[in-house]
């Protein structure tokens, strides 16, 4: 372990400038940056990005993508997240679903889904969590029963972000009843069309007052065989591979950039030493974590599989994000005012309410540390 820092090539730097210029031109001056899971759901913005080739960048050109490296995608994603751009519409489709089709999908699925994803026209949700399951993703009770030409799916999924807006969800289902043995056996991923009549989506209101996550009840939804993703019975292996994919990207340390920038704007003019120290603390760690995350991306491009490193970086990143909120709040020394006059006021309120969820996405702190601890102690024996 322990990566070396990786420089960006001139090409990669040029790409960054290009994205930056595009965003400066496109986003309004008083734009309120989105935090956390990548900003608001804005189909128009997603399509505009797609026209530039910045959606589904790592999809090969033969399927309508840019066939870009992990690092080039990193550069674009980083700028979009840094600006808090409204990328929620294509976020899951591009980060999770496209790679899954490439690894596990049929040629037909690739040809149908990937060009649509790259065009920003096909949006995905995740269908993993179930009520009372928590981080125990294997305790799946949603069942898919084989029927003529496909499967009939019934069950309930929760924490399904933007299911009321997106087109599809890859749902983890039990395709063979659970036996005595391996709890991970008998699971499969089925692509459910969220516009199907048997799909009932209702919002789960959160403490921040938002209603973008949903409960999705599947009431005998028919999924044809050609919409099974990967192998029947291999759902668990596929899902864990996907989770590893989403671990260490810039979304693990940039949720707070909007807040940080607003702090500088509102409380960072000629700051006293308390505020300066807070600004410096956040900056130093952000600068470092960014290099760690970039190093993981580069290593993926070099064909390595830095799963443990990615877990560490994710844990470092999300812990950092939560600390930043506390550090800046303390340094500001103000009452939190959700309707306050400054961008910092409003973003601080949003961050305080949302920060608890940042360590839940993509494996809780405990799960991540478990993975890392196992690798560390295995290395030693």
């Amino acid at each position: 372990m322990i990566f070396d820092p990786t420089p960006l090539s001139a090409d990669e730097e040029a790409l960054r400038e290009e994205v930056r210029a595009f965003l400066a031109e496109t986003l309004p001056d008083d734009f309120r940056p989105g935090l956390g899971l990548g900003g608001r759901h804005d189909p128009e913005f997603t399509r505009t990005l797609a026209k530039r080739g910045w959606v589904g960048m790592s999809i090969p050109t033969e399927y309508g993508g840019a066939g870009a490296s992990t690092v080039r995608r990193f550069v674009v994603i980083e700028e979009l997240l840094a600006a808090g751009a409204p990328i929620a519409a294509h976020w899951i489709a591009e980060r999770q679903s496209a790679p899954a089709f490439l690894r596990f999908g049929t040629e037909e699925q690739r040809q149908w889904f990937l060009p649509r994803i790259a065009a920003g026209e096909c949006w995905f949700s995740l269908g993993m969590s179930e009520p009372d399951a928590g981080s125990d993703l294997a305790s799946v009770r949603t069942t898919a029963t084989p029927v003529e030409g496909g499967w009939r799916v019934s069950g309930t999924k929760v924490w399904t972000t933007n299911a009321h807006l997106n087109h599809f969800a890859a749902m983890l289902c039990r395709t063979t009843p659970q036996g005595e043995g391996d709890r991970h056996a008998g699971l499969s991923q089925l692509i459910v069309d969220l516009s199907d009549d048997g799909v009932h989506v209702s919002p789960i209101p959160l403490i921040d007052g938002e209603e973008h996550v949903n409960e999705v009840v599947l009431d005998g939804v028919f999924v044809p065989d050609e919409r099974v993703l990967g192998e029947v019975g291999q759902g668990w292996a596929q899902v864990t591979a996907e989770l590893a994919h989403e671990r260490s990207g810039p979304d693990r340390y940039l949720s707070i950039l909007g807040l940080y920038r607003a702090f500088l704007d509102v409380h960072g003019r000629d700051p006293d030493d308390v505020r300066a120290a807070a600004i410096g603390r956040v900056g130093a760690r952000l600068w470092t974590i960014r290099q760690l995350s970039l190093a993981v991306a580069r290593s993926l491009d070099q064909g390595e599989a830095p799963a443990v490193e990615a877990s560490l970086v994710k844990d470092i990143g999300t812990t950092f994000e939560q600390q930043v909120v506390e550090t800046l709040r303390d340094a500001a020394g103000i009452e939190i005012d959700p309707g306050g006059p400054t961008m910092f006021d409003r973003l601080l309120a949003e961050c305080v309410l949302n920060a608890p969820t940042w360590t839940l996405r993509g494996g809780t702190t405990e799960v991540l540390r478990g993975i890392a601890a196992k690798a560390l102690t295995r290395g030693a024996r």
Partner: protein
Amino acid sequence: MNADVREAVADLLADRVTPEVLEAAERDGWSAGVWEPLHAGGFTTVGVPEAAGGAGGSVAEACAVLEAAGAAAAPVPVAETGLLAGRLLAAAGLTLPDGPLTTGTGSVTLADGALTGRLARVPWASASARIAVLADGPDGSVVAVVDPSDARIAAGHNLAGEPRETVDLDGVVPETTAPAPADAADLLARRSALARAAQIAGAARRVLEVTVAYTGERVQFGRPVSRFPAVADHLVRIAEQAEMAAMAARSAAVGAGPDGEPAELDVAAAAAVASEAAGLVAAAAHQATGAMGVTREFALGVLTRRLWSWRDEWGGERAWSTRLGHTLAAGGPEQLWPTLSRGVR
């Protein structure tokens, strides 16, 4: 390249920095037996141009040496000889004297050819062949070379027993002087802080190894203690902080480029991150190893006493964070992200 340097130095030090050597060095002030092979191998002046009598190489390569030296807890002034005094002399156009060198901060004046003033907490002053002194001369800043036997030196140590001595110059005639570049003091401070960050990164990494090994071997209630969730959690924290320190120090070092100096922002970030990591790593390692960890016989204390010392030398976490914060604030919100996302070179 940097990895090769690290490995070469690690190999060279592996059997030489033994517990006995460390105990002896605490008594004697340093270890000639550790110094000689490092010096003979040219590792003590990496990062100092060959033209000035150094071994050449970049700041990043010098930091690779320091990471390995930090991991080994080598009780010799390798940072001081190369990146600190060595480059200070070279920048003033002077050639390096042979042997261990050091430098320090304080207020020293050059008048009528003699130096007067005090340098505080100078590392390895007595053990050094020469001290490079940055002084105020009649025509501006100068770099002067002083023989430590011409100075009054009062003993002092850090928590690790490494010499940190008070050097009083009462009208000492230097061997040589040369005009110093305008930014000599600032660049020295940056390289000093970066050097400690690199040493911290090396030591933190070694703490991880020592702690993982010990908690893996030690059995309690019938299983290795590393399997207990609380201990495993400490191991992960140590690993995370070691990665942070190493990435920060390496990024700042690589950012200096082939012949350049590290950027202020990079050094500030690296020093702040490494300084904080030092404390967290030491605390977690002692928590994981319990009573054994605090005995003098066990390998951990040698490292943690250095982490606790190095993190505050040439400015600690708060000092560098504050400095970085003022710099970032002065750039304003628009420049914040462009500044922080400037890549390493």
